[in-house]
């Protein structure tokens, strides 16, 4: 809601002001209104306040398909010819990182920040059977470990991205904040009820090493946001079933709220890329081939429901209610349902991203179909 720009009216005024200042020895050559000057933005307190997605106008709203910004200047700022070329950004092509709703996701993240210190009812925790507590602590140790991935890797890519694409950068910063809180809250869970940390994941590949290794942002995002966080989100959404007190329920509910934004970022970015840079679709499908192998065979890591891992066994104990054979068997059946849900949600996300043809043309991993139809 902008009023008419009034820059024409001001030009003369500012030239007079500049002259006046110059008589007093000031330079003031910067005191020139841009073409949008005078176009007010309604801060609209009733509709969420002054939001990032509503502020840019004119040249400030023009997001270049390719950025030549090598000085780190804010998008739309006037350039200085003598500014140093410090911005050695590898991401200067819009399609490589863009999505349509990054600002909205950022503002939502700001509004939904929470505190693991006071927003989790830690006082509701009571002593649990030893095997349950150990399973909780093993799962918490695993999640603490993998949450480092989801903070550190986006951090690397923020510094690689031109500030002309500041919206996705802002979202990724909010993700770093979210992941810090997740790392923190699961560490707190491990210590909150008389347990402690347990075993590290057996090798770095199982704690998200492939995400670190990605040399392309979209490849990284597919592995992190679509695969890793998507899998974890499915687990968090099942949190009610594996929680033994209100504190755990709150942890999973709050963390799921954050993770859903992260997954949305990945889906919306893939969707934008598929629409605007279709020649890359085949390449993206090859990343998805790897991700699907991880889904069915557990080669990708970051999935606590993956068979044969301590976190999978911990899940089975938590879902079945104990570590005796019958409970583990029952928990394993529920864990299988979790894996089915993971696969179904993954399929849906890929369809929304505009890459669902792989499920029609035989490209998708055949084992997925068994999960979906189960």
């Amino acid at each position, binding site marked *: 809601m902008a009023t008419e720009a009034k820059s024409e009216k001001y030009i003369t005024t500012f030239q007079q002001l500049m002259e006046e*200042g110059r008589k007093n020895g*000031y*330079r*003031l050559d*910067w*005191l020139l*209104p*841009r073409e*949008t*000057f005078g176009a007010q933005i309604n*801060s609209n307190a009733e509709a*969420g*306040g*002054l939001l990032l997605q509503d*502020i*840019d106008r*004119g040249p400030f709203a023009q997001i270049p398909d390719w950025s030549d910004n090598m000085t*780190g200047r*804010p998008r739309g*700022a006037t350039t200085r010819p003598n*500014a140093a070329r410090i911005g050695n950004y590898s991401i200067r092509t819009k399609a490589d990182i863009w999505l349509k709703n990054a600002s909205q996701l950022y503002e939502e993240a700001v509004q939904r*920040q929470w*505190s*693991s*210190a006071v927003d*989790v009812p*830690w006082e509701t925790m009571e002593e649990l059977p030893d095997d349950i507590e150990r399973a909780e602590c*093993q799962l918490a*140790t695993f999640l603490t*470990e993998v949450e*480092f991935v989801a*903070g550190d890797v986006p*951090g690397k890519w*923020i*510094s690689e991205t031109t500030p002309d694409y500041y919206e996705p*950068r*802002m979202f990724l*910063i*909010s993700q*770093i904040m979210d992941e*810090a809180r997740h790392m923190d809250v699961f*560490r707190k869970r491990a*210590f*909150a009820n*008389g347990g*402690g940390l*347990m075993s*590290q994941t057996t*090798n*770095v590949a199982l*704690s*998200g*090493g492939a995400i*670190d290794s990605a040399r392309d942002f979209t490849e990284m995002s597919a592995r992190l946001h679509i695969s890793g966080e998507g899998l974890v989100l499915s687990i968090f959404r099942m949190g009610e079933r594996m929680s033994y007190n209100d504190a755990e329920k709150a942890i999973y509910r709050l963390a799921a709220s954050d993770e859903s934004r992260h997954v949305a970022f990945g889906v919306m970015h893939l969707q934008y890329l598929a629409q605007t840079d279709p020649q890359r679709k085949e390449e993206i499908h090859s990343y998805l081939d790897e991700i699907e192998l991880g889904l069915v*065979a*557990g080669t990708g890591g970051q999935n606590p429901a993956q*068979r*044969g891992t*301590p976190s999978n066994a911990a899940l089975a104990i938590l879902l079945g209610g104990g570590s005796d054979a019958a409970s*583990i068997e029952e928990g394993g059946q529920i864990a299988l349902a979790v894996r089915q849900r993971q696969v179904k949600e993954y399929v849906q996300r890929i369809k929304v991203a505009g890459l669902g043809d792989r499920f029609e043309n035989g490209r998708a991993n055949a084992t997925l179909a068994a999960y979906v139809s189960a």
Partner: protein
Amino acid sequence: MVQQQTPPTGQRDLDGNPVPDAPDLSWMDKTLGWGIKARVEPFGGGMTIDALNVGVYAEVPDHIPFRNRLPRGAYPAPGAGSIGGYYLQDKHEQWAECAGRLYEEGISRRWSTATDVPWDTAYDLPGDVELAICQVATELSQHASVETEVVSGWLQNLSPGYHEVKLYLSTATYDAARMFEGYRKRAMLNGGGMMLESPGGMNRTIMETYAGWSQTVLGMWFVRNALDTTILRYLAVHGPSEADRVLAARLIPDRMRMAAYAVDHIRFAISKKPELVIGFQVWLGGVEFAQARDLRDPVLTEALAIIFGGSVAGMDEGMKVVRRMLQDFVKMYLSRCKQANLDRSKSLSGAFQGMLSGMAPPPRPQA
């Protein structure tokens, strides 16, 4: 506790490995310390990250021998391997005792530029003042943007073994992002928008700090942060609208947490490695040079003079306030150095001495 492994029944995974009927539960005994219970703080602080440092988990080692994501205190997997990155494995390279508390404080003081600034008070300011605010907003926004790039870029190099630092720096990145978008919003509010980019000398100095994280901290949070914080303090008083004053005042605690981490970290580093002082002193000499060179460019100080003087006509009066502000900036910087046991009072650069004496900014360039 360890469940007996049953022989495989012939079921194999996609890699051909046998899948046991019953899961391996040997992990249930893999813990370095069991029976630990962290306590919720009694006066409303909740379950804090520092409260977890009890028993065997209270030890924060001087060196982390792993370059992977082993949570400190977890039972290490011998074959976990290296993940790459995380090459800052020594405590003195990153640690600050206050990091955990700063993290919790950062979270407890969360706020939103969308709703916590009375933006509707900043309409219809005089045109010259509005453009001056937009210029200052452009530079502060760019400073914060560079800060987000720098801190987020370092996260992958800092060992997860010192998770309190990583947690705090996550909030610091987020706080810097808020300053970026807060001042972008302010610049766009009346259509003035982003004006002239900052000179870039300090941006370059902060970004090109390959010597180490400590050097980055010195440039970014001893020097640049002291300047930005001082500007914010003056805007919190002399800002032309309530929105400008509130925005600046809201940002100051965020900035001060960064300074608190920085001072505590450098003091800790020097306490462990006194020989670092010489290098830090030399480095700060270079940073002071870069900052002074940026300030010789008149754009920022002229814009501030218009704001503080109330108009272009009031710039001479406004420039007096700018000189006091720069004096306060150098005092703040020297205070930080002193608190960190890095006394700069005897080796301060000439340009900084000039600002400290109230003589700066340097002579005006001829129109």
